[in-house]
């Protein structure tokens, strides 16, 4: 058997990989993550953002283990939490190991350049989680799980979390939340800190040591009303002493979305990349065959893009050249808050009108908001009362939702398009009744 190793990491200093875990660490599906950029083409905007899913996955394993150790510590368990946490040390050890390998594997299904345009580039109804599951259930990995005495179903359930449609019991749901949770998941904590470090955008930093030490398994926050009965299904929350570090995480996320993930130039590069891939890939989509998936990394796409940028006859040449020569589309319109209040569909109406005027190849539309978790989680006070974070914090309920909302136009048509827009904006973006197909099934 291989020996344990300690991997140096810029965030966590050392990440220890146990001897048995080397079977996962050394497998091609995990090593492939060395060649998948964490933030797609974001390095064209933030040159330092060249980090990969490989080190992020190691970081998630490290943080998930730390969270596990804190929330299952006997001194940190409420009576209710004690009812779901296994009291058999062997079972607890088993689940800790499942959690660690699930954290390692949770991103193995990522397409080249990570999230960029996953919806458009995979068959309908599939996602990178489908591919992660295929990796975990591959013959090679099943042999690994056999040697480690782990159940592949458990690994899939924790790695994919809610994306796996098999209902999770309360304990498995907590473990999955430790990796993929919307507020305190190790995935989120690691990517915010790591992306902040590599982009040089310091707003993404927060005191994750304090945060992790304050995490607890708690009943949900109370609601009021005539029937104020709450569920007792447990979830992750924090002690009152950890509230400020949780606030800092939520703010960090808002700033990272505003500054980095939804940066206008990053968004248009993602669109150009999607356009290139749709032109270059057979049938415009990535294959779901496992061997094809493992053989396809950012390296293959970059080589194809570089070649296509030089060859006008190559599929996707125009899009590849825009990326290679930094001739990305420019922002024609970004609605203000009052524009959106007047008509949230105004930007789309402007896009449609611009397409009619200048042609579909000259205009792109982008609207994306970060997922809608509301940052409400339970907080346990010093007298053991459990309260809602939004009531206990003056900050959490007021953090806005970051959004990307743009109409882009080619730089060759920008001046003309801008003049046209300035003349016609009010008319084009006025609210109007939309087509409503109310046939059966609508």
């Amino acid at each position, binding site marked *: 058997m291989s020996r344990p190793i300690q991997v140096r990491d810029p965030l966590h200093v050392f990440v220890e990989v146990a001897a048995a875990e080397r079977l996962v660490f050394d497998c091609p599906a995990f090593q492939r993550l060395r060649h998948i950029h964490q933030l797609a083409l974001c390095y064209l905007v933030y040159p330092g953002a060249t980090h990969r899913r490989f080190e992020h996955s190691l970081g998630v394993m490290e943080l998930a283990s730390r969270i596990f150790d804190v929330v299952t510590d006997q001194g940190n368990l409420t009576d209710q939490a004690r009812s779901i946490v296994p009291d058999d040390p062997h079972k607890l050890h088993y689940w800790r190991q499942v959690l660690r390998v699930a954290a390692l594997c949770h991103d193995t299904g990522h397409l080249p350049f990570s999230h960029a345009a996953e919806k458009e580039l995979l068959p309908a109804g599939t996602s990178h989680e489908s591919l992660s599951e295929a990796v975990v259930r591959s013959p090679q990995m099943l042999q690994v799980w056999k040697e480690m005495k782990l159940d592949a179903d458990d690994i899939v359930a924790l790695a994919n979390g*809610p994306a796996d449609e098999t209902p999770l019991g309360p304990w498995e749901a907590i473990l999955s939340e430790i990796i993929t949770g919307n507020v305190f998941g190790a995935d989120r904590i690691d990517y915010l800190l790591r992306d902040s470090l590599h982009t040089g955008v310091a707003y993404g930093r927060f005191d994750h040591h304090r945060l992790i030490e304050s995490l607890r398994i708690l009943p*949900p926050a109370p609601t009021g009303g005539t029937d104020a009965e709450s569920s007792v299904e447990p979830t992750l929350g924090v002690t009152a002493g950890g509230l400020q570090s949780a606030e800092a995480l939520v703010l960090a996320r808002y700033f990272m979305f505003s500054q980095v993930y939804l940066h206008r130039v990053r968004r248009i590069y993602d669109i150009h990349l999607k356009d290139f891939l749709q032109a270059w890939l057979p049938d415009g989509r990535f294959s779901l065959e496992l061997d094809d998936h493992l053989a396809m990394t950012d390296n293959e796409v970059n080589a194809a893009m570089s070649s296509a940028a030089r060859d006008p006859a190559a599929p996707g040449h125009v899009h590849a050249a825009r990326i290679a020569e930094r001739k990305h589309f420019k922002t024609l319109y970004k609605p203000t808050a009052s524009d959106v209040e007047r008509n*949230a569909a105004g930007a789309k109406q402007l896009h449609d009108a611009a397409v009619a005027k200048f042609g579909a190849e000259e205009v792109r539309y982008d609207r994306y908001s970060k*997922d809608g978790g509301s940052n409400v989680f339970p907080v346990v006070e010093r007298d053991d009362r459990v309260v809602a974070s*939004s009531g206990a914090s003056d900050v959490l309920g007021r953090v806005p939702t970051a959004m990307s909302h743009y109409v882009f136009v080619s730089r060759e048509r920008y001046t003309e398009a801008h003049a046209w827009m300035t003349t016609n904006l009010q008319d084009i973006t006025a609210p109007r009744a939309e087509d409503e197909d109310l046939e059966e099934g*609508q």
Partner: protein
Amino acid sequence: MTESRRAALVAQLVERLRAHESWAGETHVQKSTYVLQQLLGVPMGLPFQLYKFGPFSFELRDLLGQMRSLRQLEMELQPYPYGPKLTVGPGAPQLQTRFPKTIRKYGAAVDFVASEVGPLGVGSLERMATALLVQIESPDAGAREQAARLHAYKPHVSVEQAVEALGQVDQLAGRAQEAGVTLAA
């Protein structure tokens, strides 16, 4: 159904929930929408799966986030120690302008759900929505078998509570039929 039309119905639902004095937190909107779609047949096309507090739609969660960013919905903070309520924002009225037929067609169903489901607490909502999910998953199973399944999914819900929740769903379906708001079997 397009995302914008879904948003129009969700805004309508939140407005009706508040009118019927529901707490109107995110769980209320999730479970009310599940009943609207799965029991009354309003074709919102949202995928739901069993998760925390019963059936849950991640697409709906993202839609709520998007609606907040478009100021179609807002979070209304509540006094300590309670969680927030949702309320319609200044961007909501435009949805009625854009989708009048949709709101007219499904408005009665939305109001029925808001009045029947909205006033429940999160614990009751969890039991009732999970009971509906179990009935959909195993329509031919007897009540005891369905109750056992619900208990297996949510061990903190006793079998007796599960039986009661299954009965509540049957009664709700009956009242929906009487009110003429059921669009599909």
